[in-house]
């Protein structure tokens, strides 16, 4: 119990002091995971719509593959991306390894299946009649599709939230392709999760737990922001 109390105090301490190091680590986590989710949405949303609405041979296999992607261990994603980007790997010439770019790429592969799978399930559960009726009433294909997206917007927002949660909380991939590097005291590729692993390894349990609490707090704030927007600005935009 004492450990948790100490961690809570340490967490408050870290937040109040908010030194440059902690701030840089938090900002990098947000930047990497935020960009990754954005890219995952750009790819996963249309893919999920297509898999959820279209009817074609092999759709079941593709859907099962996407769902399997939900169980993909981040460390395996990290290993594969590492082998691609390594100096001895096929994409080594890009010199992306141990940069935030590589970390973002790996997290796209982690968040992607979440966005795709949940979108797929969401639009798949909207009655097919809705689109047929809209088309029958003279709506264009795009307008009919938009109608389905609007109906499923709450679930689609859940897909984005789940993708972000998966990205910001994973450690296996960012550790592997990011390297948890800090240079001359300033942050290069250290995220909140890799910093937690490091502090734990050093036996600094209080600091590690405190960072964990800050991570939760930030995830909470982002979720509140996203779900409020779903009812507010974003929701209005979708309803118009």
């Amino acid at each position, binding site marked *: 119990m004492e450990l948790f109390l100490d961690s809570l105090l340490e967490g408050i301490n870290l937040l109040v002091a908010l030194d440059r190091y902690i701030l840089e680590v938090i900002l990098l986590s947000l930047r990497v995971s935020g960009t990754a989710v954005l890219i995952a949405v750009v790819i996963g949303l249309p893919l999920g719509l297509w898999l959820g609405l279209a009817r074609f041979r092999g759709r079941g296999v593709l859907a099962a593959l996407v769902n399997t992607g939900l169980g993909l261990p981040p460390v395996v994603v990290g290993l594969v991306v590492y082998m691609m980007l390594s*100096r001895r790997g096929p994409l080594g010439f890009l010199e992306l390894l141990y940069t935030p770019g590589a970390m973002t790429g790996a997290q796209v592969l982690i968040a992607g299946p979440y966005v795709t799978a949940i979108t797929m399930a969401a639009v798949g559960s909207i009655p097919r009649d809705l689109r047929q009726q809209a088309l029958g009433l003279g709506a264009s294909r795009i307008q009919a599709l938009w109608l389905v997206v609007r109906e499923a917007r709450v679930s689609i927002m859940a897909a984005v939230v789940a993708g972000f949660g998966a990205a910001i909380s994973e450690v296996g991939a960012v550790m592997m392709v990011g*390297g948890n590097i*800090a*240079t001359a005291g300033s942050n290069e590729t*250290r995220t909140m999760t890799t910093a937690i692993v490091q502090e*734990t390894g*050093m*036996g600094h349990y209080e600091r590690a737990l405190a960072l964990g609490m800050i991570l939760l707090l930030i995830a909470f704030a982002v979720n509140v922001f996203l779900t409020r927007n779903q009812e507010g600005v974003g929701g209005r935009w979708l309803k118009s």
Partner: protein
Amino acid sequence: MFVSLMVLGLVAALGVRCGGDEDREAGSGGELILASTTSTRDSGLFDLLLPAFSEANPEYRVKLVAVGTGEALRLGERKDADALLVHAPEAEREFVSNGYGTERRKVMYNDFVVVGPGDDPAGAELSSSAPAAFTDIAESGAPFYSRGDDSGTHKKELAVWEEAGMDPGGAWYSETGQGMGSTLRVTSEKQGYTLTDRATFLNLEANLDLTVLVEGDPLLFNQYGVIPVAGAHNQEGAQAFAAWITSGAAQELIADYGEEEFGRALFVPNAQ
């Protein structure tokens, strides 16, 4: 939906069964938790030592937890480990004098080496000593990767910088905060320099584009010690392990480790 739940239930049941079987195999001496460092595990030595210990003492089942030196000591303080095998003599002595360990016995040593790219832009290979090599690296501005994790290896690196009369910092000096294997991988990819224990380096050398540049400096000596944790859950087992690893039989195993695979011994046993 119903079928999916059935399948899930089956998978879970299978998992429970397997776990149960394993538990029944536990010996009468019980489970012994040994906390050691990731670099010791990465050296491959445990793959030889732990089966040999189990053969000599079949009543104990050893669980190896490979963590950072700091965490290993912390696990000991909290009595979550029964015995420690680490390589940070000063921290170990403090651990014992604070009453967390019953004693500290020397087990073996290996050495650290300075590794870097084959073309050696900093000219570190020409240096007569480790501190001189570090000075050359710093002055050339070539990238240096530090463990930065308060591990035994990190402490040794800081000792070398101190000997060189330098306080490392600047755009060329990075910290990975990770284990030796990961740090070597980063160093190789970025074609920089680092300080590593020889055992881990030899184990990973085939996948690295790095060469040994400085070795043999007495400063690069890496002493391992074993500590039974005071008031540990399995105190008897901890004592048995400490006694065994410092015994003639274990010391001989340690002396031979590496000859076959690397053509040279990786550790020098020096238990008294």
